Every structure is written in structure tokens, then in C-alpha cells.
């Protein structure tokens, strides 16, 4: 009996992993386990990454029980050689793959950067912003355009990418807090932020530069339907034998329809 039991488990293992092996791979990177920041270009300072994570988590928790709640603001960076490479990224598909925001109440900010060897720093090549269906009334292209021009393309702030990104992130959050939830705006002080960056001693927040581990990904809401089922099964088997899961931030399940903004130099 015991011998048959072992054989059955072995057979299940083979079936599950075979299904997993033939599951279609996504064209897009998974979000990092920090979710709110996905600094694949490694262009941001740890202080900025952690600020985005903390602010993102706070907004999500704060808005959970409000009308149009569950808002998520996610930032991603990708390294490109020039602006033409921006066309390789489909912001809508990426938004949908990461399922940002509960009930389509999300924002995806993509920063395309290039490392300038002479300056020994990253320069911004372009920006894509995608807003979820339900976020559209609050963050219209006009509003987003104004925010981006006043931060990323404003010489008062873009002398340092981190400061410009923090200013933009702050302004987008302000729009959501004020327009969607009737709260008050918080002013951005770049001197204060710069001091914060310089003195920053990283705590134990996620780094936000590496793709989420496979075992975390398969138990997160980033995969749907049969794909999720087929990916989850092998790991579910493992969980049955004492595995525990520790999952950080994940997408709320949102979708979008192409609304947002594109800017390039």
C-alpha cells in the first residue's frame, strides 16, 4: 500500500512539473517582491525605492474601505539605449500582467533611463504612465502631463533623477488623495528630500530590483485561469507538506485600457 502511495505521489509530481514546464511564459518581467517599486535599471537610490514602497503600502491600506478604494501606484524603471526602444514596452500589457490596483484603481509609472558614462549617472529618456480604468477620471492625461512637466522635465527638480521621481510620485499621490479620497495634499520639499536621501540608512524593506521569486509569484494574484492553476499545482503539492508562504505586496487584480501619458525627450 505504502509502495503504491509513493508511486502515486511520484506520478503526480511528474504530471504537475510537466504542466508547469509547458505553461506559456510571459513576455514581461514579473514584479519584484516589493511590488510598488521595480527598479530593473537600478537607477534609483535605496531611499527612493523604500519611500515608494512605504507610500504605496500606506495608500493601499488607507483606501481599502473607501469608495474607489484599493489604489496602487507602482513604479518601474527599464534601461534603454535610446527613445526608440520605448516602443518595445507595452505599458497596457505590463499593467495588466501586474494587475495593479483593486478594481482597476491603479497607476503604473515606467521610467526609461540610460546610463551616461561621462556623467556617471542615469539620464531619463522617456516616461510612460498607464492608469487603470477606474483611475481615469482622477488622473487625466492633462493632469499627468502637468505633473510630469513639473517634476521629471522641470530643471528645478531633475538635476537629480531621484528628486524628480520623488516629486512626481508625491504629486500623483496628492492627486489621488485629494481628488479620489477628499484628503489633503502634502507639499514636496526637495531640500528635505535630498537630505533624507543622503542620510538614508536602509532598513529591511525589499530591494525592489529583482523579479519576484517563482514560489512567491505562483501564489500571488499575477497569474490567472489555467496558467495560474497549472503553475500553482506543483507548488501546492509542496505546501501540503509543511511549506509556508510569506507573501509581501501584490497587485490588486486591476486592468487598464491604454489611458495615460507618454513623454520622450
Amino acid at each position, binding site marked *: 500500500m505504502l509502495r503504491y502511495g509513493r508511486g502515486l505521489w511520484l506520478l503526480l509530481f511528474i504530471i504537475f512539473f510537466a504542466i508547469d514546464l509547458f505553461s506559456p511564459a510571459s513576455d514581461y518581467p514579473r514584479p519584484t517582491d516589493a511590488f510598488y517599486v521595480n527598479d530593473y535599471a537600478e537607477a534609483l537610490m535605496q531611499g527612493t525605492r523604500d519611500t515608494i514602497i512605504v507610500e504605496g503600502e500606506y495608500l493601499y491600506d488607507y483606501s481599502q474601505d473607501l469608495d474607489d478604494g484599493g489604489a496602487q501606484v507602482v513604479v518601474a524603471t527599464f534601461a534603454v539605449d535610446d527613445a526608440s526602444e520605448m516602443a518595445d514596452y507595452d505599458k497596457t500589457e505590463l499593467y495588466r500582467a501586474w494587475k495593479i490596483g483593486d478594481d482597476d484603481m491603479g497607476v503604473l509609472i515606467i521610467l526609461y533611463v540610460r546610463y551616461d558614462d561621462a556623467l556617471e549617472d542615469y539620464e531619463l529618456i522617456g516616461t510612460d504612465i498607464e492608469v487603470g480604468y477606474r483611475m481615469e477620471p482622477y488622473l487625466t492625461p492633462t493632469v499627468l502631463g502637468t505633473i510630469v512637466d513639473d517634476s521629471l522635465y522641470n530643471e528645478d527638480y531633475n538635476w537629480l533623477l531621484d528628486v524628480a521621481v520623488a516629486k512626481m510620485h508625491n504629486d500623483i499621490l496628492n492627486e489621488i488623495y485629494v481628488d479620489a479620497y477628499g484628503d489633503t495634499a502634502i507639499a514636496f520639499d526637495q531640500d528635505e528630500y535630498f537630505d533624507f536621501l543622503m542620510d538614508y540608512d536602509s532598513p529591511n524593506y525589499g530591494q525592489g530590483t529583482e523579479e519576484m521569486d517563482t514560489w512567491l509569484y505562483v501564489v500571488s494574484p499575477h497569474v490567472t485561469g489555467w496558467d495560474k492553476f497549472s503553475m500553482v499545482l506543483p507548488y501546492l503539492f509542496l505546501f501540503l507538506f509543511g511549506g509556508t508562504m510569506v507573501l509581501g505586496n501584490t497587485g490588486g487584480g486591476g486592468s487598464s*485600457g*491604454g*489611458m495615460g*501619458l507618454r513623454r520622450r*525627450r
Partner: protein
Amino acid sequence: MNKTLIYGVLAAIALVLAIIGLSLGVGYNRLVTKDEDIDAKYSQIEIRLQERHDKIGQLVGTVEGLQEHAETIYNAITEAREAYADAVANSDMDALIEADAMEAQAVTDLLVVVEDNPLITATAGFTSLMDEISSMESALAVARRDYNTAVQEYNTSVRKFPTVLYAGMFGFERDLEYWKMNDGADEVPEINFGD
């Protein structure tokens, strides 16, 4: 004949009938879901088209002196808007696709005129106008793509075995039309703000 054999045959027939029934039920429900998905995606295109229709009206008003600068473009926009209004009034999908293409072309032409004309680019709200147009066209492109993907999935399902055997019986159309645009007409106009 042996009773056991008869029961066995009856059980096998019942099992086959149950499998066929189950397959029919699941297949039918799947087609209904796909059909509903197409309707939802079509509605999304309609919403986006209406938004663009409304926005173009506002934009033409925003760009001061457009009629003086580009009479042809102004007329093309007016014609496209009228075509759209007629298509909506008649619930004519082919006419709607045609009106969509006309509006897309008119918007692209408008962008060329606007970008080449310093008098217009100096107009207050020019950047906002560009952002709105670009985003609107991007959203429309996504809506069209979603619709065509839904139609493709439906058409593929209907033609696959065993669905092909009973899809017609339940009144499902065999080959739904895609939202076809002329080459390049559905491309989002590229807005270059320069440095």
C-alpha cells in the same frame, strides 16, 4: 443475453450520453462567455469613440484659428464627426469602423498641422491638447485590439472540434467580423515634445 452484459452496455451508453451532454453544456457556456466578452469589448470601443468624438469637438475649439490655418483639416474633422454621429444613430458597425478610420486620419492630419504651426503651438493648452489626443488614440488602439482578440478567440472556438458540430445548432455565428482599419490608421500618433 447475459443480464450483466446488458447492464454493462446500458451503463456504457449512459456514460457516453453523459459525457456528450456535459461536453455540450460546457462548450455552450464557453461560447456564451466568449460572445458576451465580445459585446463587452465592443461597448468599450463605443465608449472610447464617444470620448474621442466629444474630445475632438473641444479640441477644435481650443486650437484658436484652426479653421483659418487649415480649412481642409477642419472640414475633414467635421465630416468625420458627422459620419460618426450617423453611424451611431443607425447602429451600423461597418459605418462606425469607417467613421473611426476617418476620425483617426483627421486627428493625425490635425497633429501634423498643429506641430508645424508655431502660432498654434504657442496657444495656451497646446501641450494638454497633445496629451489628450495621444492618450485617447492609445486607449482606442487598446480597445480595438481587445475586441479583435475576443473575436479571434470566439471564431477559433466556433471552428474547433467538437464545438463546430453544434455551434450552428445553438445559433452562434461562424465567422464574426474583426474591427478592421486601413494599414497604419490605428497607430497612435507619435507626439514629440523635443527638449
